[in-house]
């Protein structure tokens, strides 16, 4: 087992737990009608965002996906304005104009979730180009999905990142399904990380349900990127805990497979690591309680927040 700093472990656990509880409460808020539209849940995949972002500096960028709550929370978005955005309220990160699929924050350097699968990949490469041109040392972490790797723009973007040695790390969240289509029906490679070879890029595959493993695996790619040595493809194996979005029961997921992955729950894995590192159960309970309070506060904040003003919106629009 890698030797991890206890503080870092606690922080990772707190973040994973925050994402988990944020989404569980979001589902509940969806059911009562406070949230509308698409809600793609990250339940079961939390370790990837947590592990991939743990080694970043605040100025580093991320590019997110349609399944982006975890990325945003791990990058430092506050649960209150996040929840408010899901509610479509004026206090949300996008003033209620974006919703779950479009959360972004310039200040936190999250270039945005995206409703178009794979579309964020060249955007990440572009951010890396901007960094290069101003002589910055920031790194861009691009979250992308198994489904996205079948899309043309993924190919184009990885190739460009490679030929120009741009400071980006592609974190491919392989949850093994695109909606109901298993990746085995969409690709004839055993590991999607093998595709990196087509761009002369290193590619590795890691247990995406173990935040520590992800964090460790990201060290060298982040170093490489920051040093100007080029991009890396890091495939993180994971699995959804349910359907494609809040309203999809996901009955097509083979029950035994689902069970196996649920038994390897990212939050549980981190809790076990904390216990194994000697952190007392009481401390973990404290963290859980504080996360609970934070999320409860977030839900209350969202509920209490005003709707965006229709008049302001109409005034903006005429200028477009």
């Amino acid at each position, binding site marked *: 087992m890698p030797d991890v700093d206890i503080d870092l472990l606690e922080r990772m656990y707190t973040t994973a737990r925050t994402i988990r509880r944020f989404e569980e409460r979001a589902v509940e808020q969806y059911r009562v009608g406070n949230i509308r539209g698409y809600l793609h849940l990250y339940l079961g995949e939390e370790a990837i965002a947590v592990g991939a972002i743990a080694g970043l500096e605040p100025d580093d960028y991320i590019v997110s996906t349609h399944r982006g709550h975890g990325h945003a929370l791990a990058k430092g978005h506050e649960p209150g304005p996040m929840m408010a955005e899901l509610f479509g309220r004026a206090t949300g990160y996008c003033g209620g104009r*974006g919703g779950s699929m479009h959360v972004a924050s310039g200040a936190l350097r999250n270039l945005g979730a995206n409703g178009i699968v794979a579309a964020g990949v060249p955007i990440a490469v572009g951010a890396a180009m901007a960094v290069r041109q101003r002589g910055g040392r920031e790194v861009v972490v691009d979250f992308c999905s198994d489904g996205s790797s079948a899309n043309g723009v993924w190919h184009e973007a990885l190739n460009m990142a490679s030929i120009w040695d741009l400071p980006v790390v592609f974190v491919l969240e392989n949850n093994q399904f*695109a909606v109901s289509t298993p990746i085995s029906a969409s690709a004839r490679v055993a590991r999607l990380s093998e595709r990196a070879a087509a761009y002369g890029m290193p590619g590795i595959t890691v247990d995406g349900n173990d935040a520590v493993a992800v964090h460790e695996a990201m060290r060298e790619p982040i170093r490489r990127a920051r040093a100007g040595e080029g991009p890396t493809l890091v495939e993180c194996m994971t699995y959804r805990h349910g359907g494609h979005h809040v309203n999809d029961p996901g009955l097509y997921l083979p029950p035994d497979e689902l069970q196996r992955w649920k038994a390897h729950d990212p939050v549980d894995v981190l809790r076990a690591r904390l216990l194994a590192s000697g952190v007392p159960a009481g401390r973990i309970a404290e963290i859980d309680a504080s996360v609970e309070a934070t999320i409860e506060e977030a839900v209350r904040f969202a509920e209490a927040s005003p709707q965006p003003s*229709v008049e302001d919106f109409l005034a903006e629009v005429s200028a477009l």
Partner: protein
Amino acid sequence: MSRIKYRQALRDALREEMLRDERVFCIGEGIGERGGSYKVTDGLIGEFGPGRVIDTPLSEAGFVGLGVGAAIAGSRPVVELLFIDFLLLAMDQVVNQAAKYRFMSGGQGHVPLVIRTQGGAGNSLAAQHSQSLEAMFVQVPGLKVVMPSTPADAKGLLKAAIRDDDPVVFIEHKLLYMTEGDVPDEESVVPLGVADVKRPGDDVTLVAWSHMLTKCLTAAEELAAEGISVEVVDPRTLVPLDIATIVASVRRTGRLVVAQEAPRRGGVAGEIAAEVSERAWDALRGPVVRVAGRNTPIPFNLALEQASIPQIADIVATVRGVVGARTPVA
């Protein structure tokens, strides 16, 4: 006649055409066991097998291109794009390939391809899943564009589209799938290029298509109560456009309002307005007026979303303004 849902009508059309012609196949994302996001292909894979109901990777340009090639080589593919917004990933194949192939090949080749897709706002799906993009396709020589508003039209036009020898962009609306209507039990193919007067009237002509048509019918009902008689014309296919029926109506009523969900700027309503103004200038008692969406990406928030596209009240108010109010407006 049977009363069925729009999505069922589409499914029936697909099924009947697949039974009739073994060159017809369907391809798209999650259309097999899952039956499509809106259940239009529900059960078809069971009947026709995975060779004719094909689930694809997320490769929109690629599988639209596959449809083009299959069509040129003798099949009659029906390619499904989950959202019209995603068709933007495949524009080269639609515009540069499918639309131009017959012409560029000197008429030797043709592309009997149907692209079935779905657009429009109304479910808080935000800016990238709510667009009304028909004008992008209407302007492309070589494409036909179909936008049915009722189950009967959906069925009859989809059959016509599949039998057509040229590429057809067939645009459904996400708010229509669950609407019901009477559909003939016997086979009924609705020819492309024939408008349908969905409600006759005398004072003003109101042209609309797809989901906006349903709003216009409600508006016409409200206006009737005020003594304003509205003729509601549904072109059903934007290319070819049955301009003759619209002009004939305008010649009787002397007034035209065109309603569209798409943003006003650059929309099809402007095209119809320009065309009718040139052809029926002498008959017009005032300018053709458009009711249209705002020039904005569609917002996520429900109230903002509603404010960004025409509502029934907007149509009523506009028509009233054009005709001159007959009853005092509150």
